[in-house]
C-alpha cells in the first residue's frame, strides 16, 4: 500500500464523520451496552447486529482486511480514523468483538483458505456471532491449566468440560475453544489445542450467568460429549497454547490486525462533568463545591496521564529506566482509574445515586451505576488488579516473585 496523504485522510475523516452524524441511531428506548460483555437480551443483540451490519455495509469495518473476505484492503490508518469518529460521535458499539478483534485477525494470519472463505465475512457483517472458550471455573487466572477435554474419536473430537465467562455464548454460532487433547507432555501447555467450534452441536449448553448488575451477558458453557468435527481444529494438535497467546495479541486495534470498530462506549470525565452540571449540593451547583472540584481535577489529571503515557511510549529516550513500565501498567491503571471515576460518579449524585437502571429519574438512565458495577469485569477479568500489580513489580521492577 502506498503512502496516504494528509489531505486524503482529512477528506476521509470528514466523510466518516458526516456518515456517523447522519446514521447514528436514535435512542432505542433501552439502555445500550457499554461493552460487548453486556449484550444480554435478544432485543439488544438484534439492534447491535443491525448497526454493525450497517457500518460494514458503509465500508467502515474491516477496512484493512482483504477484499475477497469482505474487507477493502486499505491502510489500517483509515480504520483508525473511522474508529475515532465512531467514538467521537458516541455511536453504539460494534458488538461482535471476539470475531472482529480476535478470531478474524487470527484466521487472516494463520487460517487456511477454506477457513477464510468460511468465517471472515460473517464476522464483519454480523451474521456470525463468535464467543470465546478459554477460562474455566476453577482456575480463572491460570489459563495454561485448562482442563476441558477433547478426545479424538473418528472424525470428531469429543469434548467434555466447562468454560466460563463465555460472552454471548447463548447467541454465538462459533466459539474459539481452548481444550486439552493430551494430558501427557512435559509442560501443561503442551496438551492444549485450539478449535473453531460450532455451537449448534448437541451437548453444548451455554447457560447465561446473571451479573451483579442484574443483567446478563456472560455464560457458563457446559460440554457433555459434544462432538466437534476434527477439521475444526486450528493448526495442529498441541499448538493450542501458542495460538491462544497469539490471539490475545490482536486486541490492540487495526494496526495489530483487528477489524476495528468501536468496542467500548466511551466513559470519560468530560461526559461525567456534563452529567453533573445540573446537580446541587447545599443548594449550590455541585460543580462549584471546592472538594468536588478538587477530586474531579485529580481524576482529570489521571485520565490525562494515562493518555499521555501512550504518547510517551513513542519516544524511547523517555522510557529508558523501566522500558516496559508504561506498556505493562496500562491495563491496571486504566481499569483502576475507571473504577475510581465511576464509583465517584455515583457517589456525587446525592439521593439520585440511590436510583438504579430502570428508574426514569436515574441520571443518564443509571449509566454510571451500571458503569461502576460493570467495571469490575476489567479489574478482575484478564488478570485481577492484584495479579497485574505482581506482574509489574516482577517484570518491570525486577522484584522477587511471591
Amino acid at each position, binding site marked *: 500500500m502506498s503512502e496516504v496523504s494528509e489531505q486524503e485522510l482529512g477528506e476521509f475523516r470528514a466523510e466518516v464523520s458526516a456518515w456517523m452524524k447522519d446514521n447514528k441511531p436514535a435512542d432505542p428506548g433501552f439502555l445500550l451496552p457499554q461493552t460487548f460483555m453486556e449484550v444480554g437480551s435478544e432485543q439488544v443483540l438484534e439492534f447491535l447486529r443491525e448497526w454493525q451490519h450497517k457500518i460494514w455495509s458503509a465500508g467502515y469495518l474491516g477496512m484493512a482486511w482483504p477484499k475477497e473476505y469482505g474487507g477493502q484492503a486499505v491502510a489500517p490508518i483509515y480504520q483508525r480514523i473511522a474508529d475515532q469518529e465512531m467514538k467521537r460521535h458516541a455511536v453504539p458499539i460494534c458488538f461482535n468483538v471476539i470475531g472482529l478483534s480476535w478470531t478474524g485477525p487470527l484466521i487472516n494470519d494463520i487460517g487456511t483458505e477454506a477457513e477464510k472463505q468460511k468465517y471472515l465475512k460473517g464476522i464483519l457483517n454480523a451474521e456470525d456471532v463468535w464467543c470465546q472458550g478459554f477460562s474455566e471455573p476453577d482456575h480463572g487466572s491460570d489459563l495454561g491449566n485448562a482442563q476441558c477435554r477433547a478426545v479424538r474419536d473418528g472424525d470428531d473430537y469429543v469434548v467434555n468440560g466447562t468454560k466460563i465467562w463465555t460472552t454471548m455464548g447463548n447467541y454465538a454460532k462459533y466459539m474459539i475453544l481452548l481444550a486439552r487433547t493430551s494430558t501427557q507432555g512435559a509442560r501443561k501447555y503442551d496438551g492444549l489445542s485450539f478449535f473453531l467450534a460450532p455451537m449448534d452441536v448437541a451437548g453444548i449448553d451455554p447457560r447465561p*450467568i446473571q451479573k451483579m*448488575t442484574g443483567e446478563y451477558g456472560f455464560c457458563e458453557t457446559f460440554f457433555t460429549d459434544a462432538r466437534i468435527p476434527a477439521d475444526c481444529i486450528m493448526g495442529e494438535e498441541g499448538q493450542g497454547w501458542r495460538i491462544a497467546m497469539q490471539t490475545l495479541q490482536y486486541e490492540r486495534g487495526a494496526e495489530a490486525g483487528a477489524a476495528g470498530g468501536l468496542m467500548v462506549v466511551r466513559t470519560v470525565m468530560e461526559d461525567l462533568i456534563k452529567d453533573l452540571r445540573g446537580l446541587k449540593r447545599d443548594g449550590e451547583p455541585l460543580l462549584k463545591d471546592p472538594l468536588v472540584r478538587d477530586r474531579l481535577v485529580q481524576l482529570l489529571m489521571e485520565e490525562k496521564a494515562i493518555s499521555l503515557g501512550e504518547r510517551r511510549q513513542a519516544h524511547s529516550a523517555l522510557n529508558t529506566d523501566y522500558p516496559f513500565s508504561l506498556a505493562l501498567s496500562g491495563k491496571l491503571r486504566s481499569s483502576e482509574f475507571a473504577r475510581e471515576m465511576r464509583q465517584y460518579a455515583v457517589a456525587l449524585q*446525592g439521593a439520585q445515586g440511590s436510583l438504579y437502571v430502570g428508574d426514569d429519574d436515574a441520571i443518564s438512565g443509571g449509566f454510571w451505576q451500571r458503569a461502576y458495577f460493570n467495571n469490575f469485569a476489567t479489574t*478482575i477479568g484478564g488478570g485481577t488488579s492484584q495479579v497485574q500489580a505482581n506482574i509489574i513489580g516482577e517484570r518491570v521492577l525486577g522484584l522477587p516473585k511471591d
Partner: protein
Amino acid sequence: MAKANNVITFSDEQAMVLQSARDFCADKSPVTAVRALLPGNTGYSDDVWQEMVALGWLGIALPEQYGGSGLGFGSVVPLAESMGRGLLSTPFFSTTLAAQAILRAGESQQKDTWLPRLAEGTTATLALLDNEDWGAPDTTCTATVAGSEITLQGTKWYVPDAAVAQLFVVHASLDGESALVLVERAQLADSALQSQTLIDETKRACKVDFSGVSVSADAVMRGPLAASALRDIHLLGALLVAAEAAGSAAACLDVVVDYLKTRKQFGRLIGSYQGLKHPTVEILTAMDSARCHVYHAASVIGDEALSEDAEVACRMSKAQATDAITFAGDRAIQFHGGMGFTYECDAQLYMRRAQWVQQQFGDAYHHRKRLAALLLD
C-alpha cells in the same frame, strides 16, 4: 473545638436487647430469605414485621405512657446494627423515625393519637426530600392555610417504605417556616405514589405527590419544636443508617474472610496474599471505627433536643460508616474475582447496600462539612 467527651455507656439491658436482636435477625433473615424478598413489592415479610412488633421493638425508644418501653433512642442502635448485619429491611426505620418526629415536635393530642399506634406496628414514614440534595436549605413543598384546613403542594422524592406506610410525616414550608404535616394514607390517591427503582434491592421507596392534599390544623406540627425536631430527625436518621451500615459492613467482612480462607489460586489460599490480607484488615478497622462512633452516639443521645456532642457523634457515625461500607462493598466484589461479578454471589448485596447507605441522610462529605463548623470554628 468540642471537648473530648469520649464516653461509651452500654447497660446490661442494652446488651440483652443486642443479643436478642442478633439472634432474631440471624434466625429470620438468612441470606436465602433476603434474596427471596428481593423481587417482592413490599420487600419484607409481614410475619417477621409482626414478630418485631410483638417483641416491642417499635416502642423501644418511646416513653411508657405511649406504650413504649422507655429505653431511649440509644437502644434502637443495637437493633439497627443487627438488622444491617442480616440485611433485614422492614419499615422499622421509617416508622421509628416518624415516631421520633411526633415525639419531639407533636402536641399532646398528636402524641396521644399516634405514638401508641406506631408502637403497636402501624407503619409510618418521613417525606423529607424534594430533590437529590440533602443539604438543600429549604423545601419547595408548601403548606397553605385556608380556613381551618391546610393544603399541601409539592412532590417528595425517595420516601422510604411509602407503599406500605399508613402515615406520612411531611416536611413542608408554612408561612416561610418549616412545618411537619401528618398525612394519612387514605388521603392519598394510589396514583400519588410512584415506585422508585433503588440500587439496594432490599429497600423500597416512592416519589409521592402531596399536591392538593388537605388536612385539618391539628395535623400540623410547627414552630420552634418542629424546627428542632426536623434537625434531630436528620441526625437520628443518619445515626440509624450508620448503625445499620456498620452491621452490614461486619457481615460483608465475614463474607470476604470466608472466601479468602477457602479459595485457592496458584496453589495458595488467597487470604495468605498480603495484597488481599492487608486491605481486608482495613475493612476491619474501618468497620471498628464506625461501630465505635455509633456506640458513642448511642451513649450521648437523650430524649431532649440533641446536644452539640450528640450532633458531632451522629455526623461522625454516618461519615465513618459510609466510608467503611463503600470500601467493604467494593473490595468484596473485587476479592471474589469472577464469582464476585455474579448476581449469585452475596458480595453484590453489600455493594448495593453501600451505594444506598452513602446517599441516605447526606453522604460522608455532607456530614464532614458540618462537623468542620462544629469542631474548627
